[in-house]
């Protein structure tokens, strides 16, 4: 009973930290100038956190090495965009397709859910053949499917629906959540809090899934497929379940990416995007939701913000810092990633979660040993 109490206090601490983050985001948004790069990083970071956690559900908790995340994000982003572009703007957006096929617009929240559902539906169909494959083969097959999805969405014969390979825009973005007064001035900024809320709810659902009897079964599959099957767990159904759920949230993540970018185009959802998310998962620690979240923000902040100065000539006094020019940021960034991958293989969190950080040191040490 003693252990149980300890867990509960650490859970409370964790909840407090999360609540503080939300409050912090809200306060920062009201006080700091809206143009600050901080908010760009926070919005994109929240989006990537969700996608990374959804990938972690597959790779870290179910042991399915899938590289199809970008494909499902694409589906989600497109579903969201297609269903929410205001009818009046469709003529402009679908300029080559006479305003497109769909002539209605959904509110944001139902559209987000639809985005997830469409992605999950595709995942269901793709899962039927590919989930029977193992490790590397599964990875490469899902990567292939992501590429196929991209080609299909770019096919101009489907242009009335997808706008061919052209850009989709004018759909509601995070900034549309800001509350404005009659003059159009923003009174309450919510554009950063909203992605935090969406991602937070989704990640909470994933965490709850992981801690349910289904989550245990998924982890069992990861640990030992043969034993899991011998314990009566239907491998295919559970893999399919995990694949669909992961894709559902990847779809919502894609929709969030669309909201963050304000425009969306199939061309951008390449395998490079999947690799990026995979790296986030690895840096955070495969099998740690907390790790994925933290590393998303670090990753986005490094790539978009903190390291930007490396791309421009800098003077310290009269001394021009050598090497600094366009592209150096990415070189430094990739070297950091390699160092993490090679020397900090456990990532930031290993398999630990936020509450684990508040458990007594001794306990933590025991776990490391185990």
């Amino acid at each position: 009973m003693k252990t149980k109490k300890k867990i509960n206090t650490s859970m409370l601490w964790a909840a407090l930290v999360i609540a503080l983050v939300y409050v912090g985001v809200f306060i920062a948004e009201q006080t700091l100038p809206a143009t600050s790069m901080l908010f760009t990083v926070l919005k994109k970071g929240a989006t990537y956190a969700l996608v990374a956690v959804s990938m972690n559900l597959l790779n870290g908790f179910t042991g399915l090495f899938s590289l199809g995340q970008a494909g499902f994000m694409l589906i989600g982003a497109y579903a969201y965009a297609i269903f929410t572009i205001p009818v009046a703007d469709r003529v402009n957006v679908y300029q080559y397709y006479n305003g497109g096929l769909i002539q209605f617009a959904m509110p944001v929240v139902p559209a987000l859910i639809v985005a997830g559902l469409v992605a999950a539906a595709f995942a269901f169909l793709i899962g039927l053949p590919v989930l029977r494959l193992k490790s590397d083969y599964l990875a490469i097959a899902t990567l292939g499917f992501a590429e196929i999805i991209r080609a299909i969405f770019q096919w101009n014969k489907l242009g009335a629906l997808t706008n061919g390979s052209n850009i989709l825009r004018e759909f509601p973005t995070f900034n549309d959540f800001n509350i404005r007064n009659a003059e159009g001035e923003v009174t309450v900024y919510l554009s950063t809090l909203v992605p935090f809320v969406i991602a937070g709810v989704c990640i909470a659902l994933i965490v709850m899934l992981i801690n349910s009897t289904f989550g245990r079964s998924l982890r069992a599959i990861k640990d030992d497929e043969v034993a899991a099957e011998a314990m009566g767990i239907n491998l295919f159904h559970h893999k399919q379940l995990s694949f669909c759920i992961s894709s559902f949230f990847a779809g919502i993540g894609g929709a969030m990416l669309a909201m963050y970018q304000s425009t969306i185009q199939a061309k951008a959802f390449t395998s490079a995007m999947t690799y990026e998310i995979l790296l986030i998962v690895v840096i955070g620690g495969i099998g740690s939701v907390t790790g994925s979240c933290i590393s998303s923000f670090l990753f986005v902040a490094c790539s978009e913000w903190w390291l930007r100065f490396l791309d421009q000539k800098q003077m310290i006094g009269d001394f021009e810092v050598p090497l600094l020019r366009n592209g150096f940021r990415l070189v430094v960034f990739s070297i950091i990633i390699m160092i993490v991958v090679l020397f900090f293989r456990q990532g930031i969190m290993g398999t630990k979660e936020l509450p684990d950080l508040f458990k007594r040191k001794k306990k933590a040490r025991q776990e490391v040993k185990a």
Partner: protein
Amino acid sequence: MFNTVFPYLLTGISVGGQYALIAIGYTMVYGILRLINFAHGDVFMVAGIVMVYLNASGMPLVLSVLLTLLITMAIGFAVERVAYKPLRSAPRMSVMISAIGVSYTLQNLVLYITGGLNQFYPKIPFVSDSITIFGVNTKMVTVITPILTVILVVALVMLINHTKIGMAMRAVSKDFETSQLMGIKINSVISTTFIIGSFLAAVGSMLYFTNYNTVIQTSGSMPGLKAFVAAVFGGIGSIPGAVVGAFIIGICENIIKGLDIILFKAGITKQNLGLATFSDAFTFALLIVILIVKPTGLFGEKVTDKV
């Protein structure tokens, strides 16, 4: 009909040959380390960049070709030593991620060095000349590629079957641990594999970039991915499989690009369906079909898990 299809076939064979040279690198590494070396396509690209810079430095062509081969081999060796060797006992996923990291690093390094601009590949005399086959104009390289590919593959198979290092390679690919216990110097075998793979990638890059004369940091990713698909298609771990797979994929891809006009000329379709959009996607569709029908590829060996 033949006249319609032939140009696509010709291009397909040429492209296939180039994929084959890259695919061998993938398949050999996979055979030995069970690792998808995602960075291989980028080594291929780096070989192109090295050639561009060496040539720009004004040295004779022969020298720059030789140096390119040497430097690429050195890069392949270095990549293995730095990024894969420390992870020898780590789970396969970690190594694969390290490979993705290397790929990312190489691309960004080249982006930095070139400033993100296209680099123009030097023209190699004779290889770049134009010729006419069956009324179709093309570059000499189109003809040279498949021939050179076959010669190199035969040489490689001889090496693997008839030399000591080849025997060691076969042993390691059959059973990593046991061959280590048998006193095979596992690290030198692995290094050799990477060096051979990089050498072939460098040769492939010369043929490829002579044909398509610009090099940019992302030049390696698509050919790399296609070559990898070819390797899986043929049965990863099998060298003849990789070659056959590469030719099939090269040809199919180009037929798809021309499918609209072929169908149009044959009177099957009345309008352009935009099928060329699927030229890349088709490669992957083919891959998925083969994985489902015969998961080990055309020439792969079946592995049973012991319970």
